[in-house]
């Protein structure tokens, strides 16, 4: 320690203070009551300079602090003023400079401290300047928040502190910082540190203050908004009263109550409705729940809990109605009439749940309408195509915003009765995703045992669906879930034959299209031959939609002529058809004229009806094995392999040279190559094609075939017989080979077709091959002769 510093050492009376720090340059009023403090001040007063040192106590609860209880950095001060009063001394101290405590010694009743001045190190830097300005800014803002009235004066005071250090010392007591923070400010080694500390404290303080004022102002706006709303509502009421009207909400509730009283509701529903109404009456109309409750009650009251239409149980009338609307479809019409008969005898009979399966355009949807008409019931339909959310069927719970009942309940509300014919269209096209599977919800709806107490999520009351006559429609059964399929009575509507189509056109389509075009029936004559040509040359479909559109084209063109003033009746014949419809779009003569060895004619079923397809087989010199092309599914590929194995193992009987199998591979192709194909029903056709290519005998060109085969050569039954036979006929085939078990299905065919075609029923593959390949047939018969 240098001499000059030695000189600066001073011993002064020590005044410990609680809860605050005296900063140099600042005045501080104190109130000394402790005998030691009083003695220390008196000792200072007895000197010429009136100097003492002030140290803050670490712990305010200690009354006689020792050296260890004090912070080691304190302030030298001068007593500016003093006065005695109430057993103590009130004094004003002026902080002079920072000092560090070296030693404490007891002197009678008070302590003296040996201290050394601790001047602050200051660098002049841009950081100090930046911090200085920032602190001024923060402090001004904080003052504005705490004391808005005094803000202007305080801001001036703050800005007047030219020295950064003095600014900090001045601000510290202003924001009543905690003792630790004040002491840290006093102890900071440099001005920069002091400013940094103060900046941090102020930022924190400001954040707290801003948050506080935000909370306060929010509370205030909320309050004032509510008060405003209340006032406005009161004014509105007053205005309404003045105008002579009643309180609209009250009015609405009265009306609602009247409706509840009048409504014919089941007991449990009434109870729930009363409860909801009571809740509504207690709610202020502005409450969000009020509207929810009101719409709910509206819906519940509108639902036909007990309303039903009376069934018309006149079987004769029903038959007439069904025949008026649809041609043929005997099976379905009979089913409807059966149900009517049952209802007549047993009025509480369960309604059936029907499923119409068939290609598009065969009249599934319109059949539903005419069933409703025949029964005298209301008709509602909803399409399930693409539906992928279970909530669409079963509704959302009322707690959701914008909740609605499901489609089923909505349809019943539209119908206004609880026993409509409800048609669920496209049940095979229901989607499903992560939101659930609507098909699963349908399981409950379509189960007569469960749907008596169907609970829509929105209504949350059991509704009896068992009186509803459900009809679903589908194009295919493959995509319908098994359990769902199990609940429905399947009725197939297969495609129409050419004759049926002509008949349908004559009875329904032409009159309708003539009416659509605004013509009179005597303006147009479509000859039967022309209709046949339209059916076979301009359309290709299982149903009659395209046919109706094509007829519509003809009638529209005639309407144009009429509009131009040419009023002569028009007759459309087969010969002038091209004038109306342009060149024909399909050819009946797509059947091949001649088949080379290795080609066989198969029959396929598609969603749009039947089709004829040729299966081609060829030998591959130096190839190996079996190659399959033409987008064949797994079942079809296996079926091809089974056919091949059968032919190989029966080569002897078929008169086939075994060495061919070793020398050649075989390739089977099924055109058209772009259409995916699957199913076992082409088994016999592939076997025939293989037999033909190995034996080099061609198959008959006028013979089509279908049937599944087994490895031992049995022919198993297949589906879609009607469509397949109709397709064969359309293509000009004369003979059709069918599995024996499908013989019964021929009853579905129109008589004209059944008469025209020759049917061969096969039990085993030999039967098929004999019928399809004439030369092989001869071979077999010689074999049999040899055997006998």
């Amino acid at each position, binding site marked *: 320690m240098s001499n000059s510093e030695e000189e600066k050492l001073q011993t002064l009376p020590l005044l410990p203070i609680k809860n605050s720090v005296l900063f*140099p340059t600042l005045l501080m009023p104190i109130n000394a009551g402790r005998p030691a403090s009083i003695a220390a001040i*008196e000792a200072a*007063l*007895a*000197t010429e300079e*009136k100097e003492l040192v002030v140290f803050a106590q670490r712990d305010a609860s200690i009354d006689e602090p020792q050296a260890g209880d004090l912070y080691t950095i304190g302030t030298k001060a*001068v007593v500016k003023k003093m006065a*005695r009063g109430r057993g103590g001394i009130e004094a004003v101290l002026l902080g002079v400079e920072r000092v560090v405590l070296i030693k404490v010694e007891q002197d009678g009743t008070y302590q003296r401290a040996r201290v050394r001045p601790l001047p*602050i*190190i200051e660098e002049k830097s841009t950081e100090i300047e930046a911090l200085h300005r920032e602190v001024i800014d923060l402090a001004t803002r904080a003052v504005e928040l705490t004391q808005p009235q005094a803000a202007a004066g305080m801001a001036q005071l703050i800005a007047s502190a030219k020295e950064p250090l003095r600014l900090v010392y001045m601000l510290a007591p202003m924001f009543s910082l905690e003792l630790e923070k004040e002491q840290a400010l006093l102890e900071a080694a440099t001005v920069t540190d002091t400013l940094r500390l103060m900046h941090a404290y102020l930022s924190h303080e400001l954040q707290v203050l801003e948050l506080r004022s935000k909370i306060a102002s929010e509370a205030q706006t909320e309050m004032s908004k509510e008060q405003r709303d209340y006032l406005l509502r009161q004014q509105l009421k007053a205005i309404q009263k003045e105008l002579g009207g009643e309180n609209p909400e009250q009015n609405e509730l009265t009306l609602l109550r009247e409706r509840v009283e009048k409504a014919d509701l089941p007991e449990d529903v009434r109870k729930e409705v009363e409860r909801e109404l009571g809740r509504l009456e207690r709610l202020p109309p502005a409450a969000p729940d009020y509207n929810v409750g009101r719409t709910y009650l509206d819906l519940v009251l509108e639902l036909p809990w007990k309303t039903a239409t009376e069934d018309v149980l006149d079987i004769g009338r029903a038959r007439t109605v069904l025949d008026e609307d649809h041609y043929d479809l005997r099976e379905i019409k009979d089913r409807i009439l059966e149900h009517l008969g049952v209802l007549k005898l047993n009025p509480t009979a369960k309604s059936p749940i029907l499923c119409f399966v068939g290609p598009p355009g065969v009249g599934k949807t319109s059949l539903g309408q005419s069933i409703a008409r025949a029964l005298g019931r209301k008709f509602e339909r909803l399409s399930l195509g693409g539906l992928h959310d279970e909530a669409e069927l079963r509704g959302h719970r009322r707690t959701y915003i914008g909740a609605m009942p499901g489609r089923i309940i909505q349809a019943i509300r539209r119908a206004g009765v609880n026993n409509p014919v409800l048609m669920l269209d496209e049940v095979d096209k229901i989607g499903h995703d992560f939101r659930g599977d609507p098909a699963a919800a349908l399981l409950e709806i379509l189960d007569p045992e469960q749907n008596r107490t169907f609970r829509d999520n929105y209504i949350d009351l059991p509704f009896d669906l068992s009186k509803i006559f459900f009809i679903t429609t589908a194009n295919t059964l493959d995509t319908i879930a098994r359990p769902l399929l199990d609940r429905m009575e399947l009725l197939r509507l297969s495609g129409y034959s050419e004759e049926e189509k002509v008949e349908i056109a004559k009875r329904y389509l032409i009159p309708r299209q003539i009416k659509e075009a605004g013509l009179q029936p005597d303006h147009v004559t479509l000859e039967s031959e022309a209709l046949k040509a339209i059916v076979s040359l301009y359309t290709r479909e299982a149903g009659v939609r395209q046919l109706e559109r094509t007829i519509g084209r003809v009638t529209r063109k005639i309407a144009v002529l009429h509009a131009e003033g040419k009023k002569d009746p028009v007759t459309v014949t087969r010969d002038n058809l091209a004038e109306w419809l342009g060149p024909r779009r399909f050819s009946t003569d797509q059947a091949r004229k001649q088949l080379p060895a290795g080609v066989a004619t198969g029959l396929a079923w598609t969603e749009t009806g039947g089709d004829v397809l040729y299966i081609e087989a060829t030998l591959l010199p130096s190839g190996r094995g079996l190659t399959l092309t033409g987008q064949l599914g797994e079942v079809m590929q296996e079926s091809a392999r089974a056919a091949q194995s059968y032919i190989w193992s029966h080569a002897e009987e078929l008169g086939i040279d075994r060495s061919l199998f070793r020398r050649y591979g075989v390739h089977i192709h099924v055109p058209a190559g772009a259409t995916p194909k699957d199913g076992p029903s082409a088994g016999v056709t592939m076997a025939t094609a293989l037999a033909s290519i190995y034996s080099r005998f061609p198959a008959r060109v006028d013979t089509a075939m279908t049937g599944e085969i087994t490895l031992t050569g049995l022919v198993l039954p297949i589906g879609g017989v009607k469509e397949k036979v109709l397709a064969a006929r359309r293509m000009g085939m004369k003979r059709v080979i069918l599995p024996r078990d499908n013989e019964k299905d021929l009853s579905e065919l129109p008589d004209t077709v059944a008469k025209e075609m020759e049917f061969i029923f096969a039990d085993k593959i030999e039967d098929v091959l004999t019928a399809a390949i004439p030369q092989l047939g001869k071979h077999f018969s010689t074999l049999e002769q040899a055997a006998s």
Partner: protein
Amino acid sequence: MPVIFGAAQSVTERLWRPAADIYQTRDGWIIKYAVAGVKPEDMKIAIKGSAITVSGFRRDWKLEEGCTYYAMEISYNRFERTIELPCLLDGAEVRMEARDGILIVRLKCRGVNP
């Protein structure tokens, strides 16, 4: 370079500020300082530019054995008072006089008074 400078030091120089009256005369200024109880040898005057600074030290003394303070309003210890005048004072003629606890400073300026 850190500079040791004293915010505190500057405070030690002016723990209190005496009141002053300023008179203008034909050829200068007369300033009266209320510095009762300050010994003349404890005071000094400094002139720089147009500013005149009086600084000093008021020491308390014991009036009687056995007496203690009951109240205190007079400031002791260091004082300093700087007065800025509207003319340059460098080279001015300065006369000091202590009378009845008042320090009288007479300044004769050669410069032109505004």
